[in-house]
């Protein structure tokens, strides 16, 4: 490289090469180590969760109410509460998300509004969820004067919307323009083209987006703390505070009572299993879409 005389240079060059190879080997070993560490952490968390959660899992968990301190009980009311809140949030959030995503991908693909919404949406996507809780507290709980399940559902819907907007837009963008042109050539109006052609072509991806949104909100705690609050008793009244799994886990885990802590672990297991199941279904859906 620098000069071409003598053996010294050759020797130092091979020494240099050896050093470079060693340096590379060290970094590669580090990267393997980092991967093992990352996966090890996953195994440690899931292992502990399964160990603690399954030992508390019984039929009573699904059939009995949350107990007072020191007594046995189950998680029926928070499970039902979580289901109601999640379903309601999806029902409120999905149409808005799909429509907004449709505008950005179909009508205003390159206009200013879409660019701004895209940017804002990406920020909302990772905005701190506790801030969403504060927002809904300010606009719903404070004016109404009391905590309510409905406010909790709205808070979760605000988290659903950006996820659905993003996936809807991405999926509609993937629909080939030839399909739209073909629809236009037989005289199909734009709205019908979108509903009958584009939505059908993008269906799997859009469902995946909704599933991802469900996975995201089913573990959300922070936005529920001061919207839906919590409820020790059975209640399906949307105008009253409502129990949910994450808030019950929060309350029970931080309590000094062994029975409550045990139920917190079990609740955590239920949430994790459902989130994992939903993610896997979503993944299979989008994978089958790619291969077909």
């Amino acid at each position, binding site marked *: 490289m620098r000069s071409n005389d003598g053996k010294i240079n050759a020797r130092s060059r091979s020494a240099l090469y050896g050093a470079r190879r060693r340096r*590379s080997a060290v970094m590669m070993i580090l*990267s393997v180590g980092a991967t093992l560490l990352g996966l090890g952490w996953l195994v440690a968390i899931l292992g502990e969760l399964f160990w603690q959660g399954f030992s508390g899992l019984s039929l009573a968990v699904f059939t009995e109410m949350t107990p007072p301190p020191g007594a046995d009980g189950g998680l029926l009311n928070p499970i039902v509460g979580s289901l109601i809140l999640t379903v309601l949030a999806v029902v409120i959030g999905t149409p808005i998300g799909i*429509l907004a995503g449709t505008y950005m991908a*179909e009508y205003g693909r390159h206009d200013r509004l879409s660019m701004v919404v895209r940017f804002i949406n990406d920020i909302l996507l990772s905005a701190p969820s506790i*801030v969403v809780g504060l927002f809904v507290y300010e606009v719903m709980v404070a004016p109404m004067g009391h905590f309510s399940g409905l406010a909790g559902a709205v808070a979760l819907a605000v988290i659903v919307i950006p996820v659905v907007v993003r996936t809807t837009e991405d999926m509609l963008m993937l629909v080939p323009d030839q399909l739209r042109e073909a629809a236009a050539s037989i005289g199909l109006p734009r709205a019908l083209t979108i509903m009958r052609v584009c939505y059908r072509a993008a269906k799997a991806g859009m469902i995946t987006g909704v599933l991802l949104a469900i996975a995201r909100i089913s573990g959300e*705690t922070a936005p529920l703390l001061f919207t839906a609050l919590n409820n020790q008793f059975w209640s399906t009244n949307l105008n009253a505070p409502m129990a949910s799994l994450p808030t019950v886990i929060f309350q029970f885990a931080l309590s000094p009572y062994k029975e409550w802590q045990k139920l917190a672990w079990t609740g955590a297991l239920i949430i994790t299993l459902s989130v994992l199941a939903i993610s896997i279904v979503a993944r299979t859906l989008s994978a089958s879409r790619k291969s077909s």
Partner: protein
Amino acid sequence: MGPAGRPRVVDVALPGEAAAMSGVSSRAKVIERLRLGDKVFRLLTKTAAIGVLIILGGVMFSLIDGSLPALRTFGLDFLLEQRWNPVTEKFGALAPIYGTLVTSFIAMLIAVPIGLLIAVFLTELCPMWLRRPIGIAIELLAGIPSIIYGIWGLFVFAPFLQETLQPFLIATLGNIPGLSVLFAGPPYGIGVLTAGLILAIMVLPFITSISRDVFDAVPPVLKEAAYGVGCTTWEVVRNVVLPYTRVGVIGGVMLGLGRALGETMAVTFVIGNAHKISASLLAPGTTISATIANEFTEAVGDLYTSSLIALGLILFVITFIVLAAARYLLLRIERRIG
């Protein structure tokens, strides 16, 4: 469907009615109706798109509106004072802001190198058949709700740290002048360091998956050329992959930072909720989100509530800036690749 069975527009749009309509005037009516439907649908979608903007505007407005009483009472002192006294109604946000920044800093300090190394492993070393399973596992880690990390941190990780890492740190680094301040005091288990470590685990998947995606986008020709002139794997990563993807990696790191700053539940469990700034990383502290989560429902008095909302506003502004920067950087690399 064969050509004979292909539905006409009218059949698609107005099934049932179509059969009855065949005259010219009814055809015009149908077209009129389709046009109207088109307009309505377009308007609907546009309204929804604007709705997303309104949500963000609403979040901003409600936070500013809610925090006005506190900001009016304390002024700039709110940002500069450490006191947090619900009894005398004197509030300052310095301790939570400090805690938020320090825990996120610890998290990034650990998660960035590890996340990048995992991405290097996945793109350069990992055998093909193993790439997908490991990639999926990392992404599943990202999907686990933060409260799971919280409960694991409280019951498993904090006691573990209290018995192993923390005494070790006190015994070794605690004696080095300069560093001793950071590792002073008894090993509580919970505290700023524990919260930072939990956050590191949480943001690791985000950083890994984004880095992997941008690493994958490096044109193979560039890497092959570098290997061709005799570069080692590390040299290819260091001198070709990283410079090419720098903007994207920084974007991914900022996205992870945005998550870490706003993360609530995982931190609330293990930070200890102490409203004071301690030099020691082993001492309990608090973050903005943990303070809000712990105290909001118990806050009595308008000033207390308003101060907590003001904390939320500060958090939102900080994360907004970080996330906007992240998106801008990621957008730049997307444009270059695409």
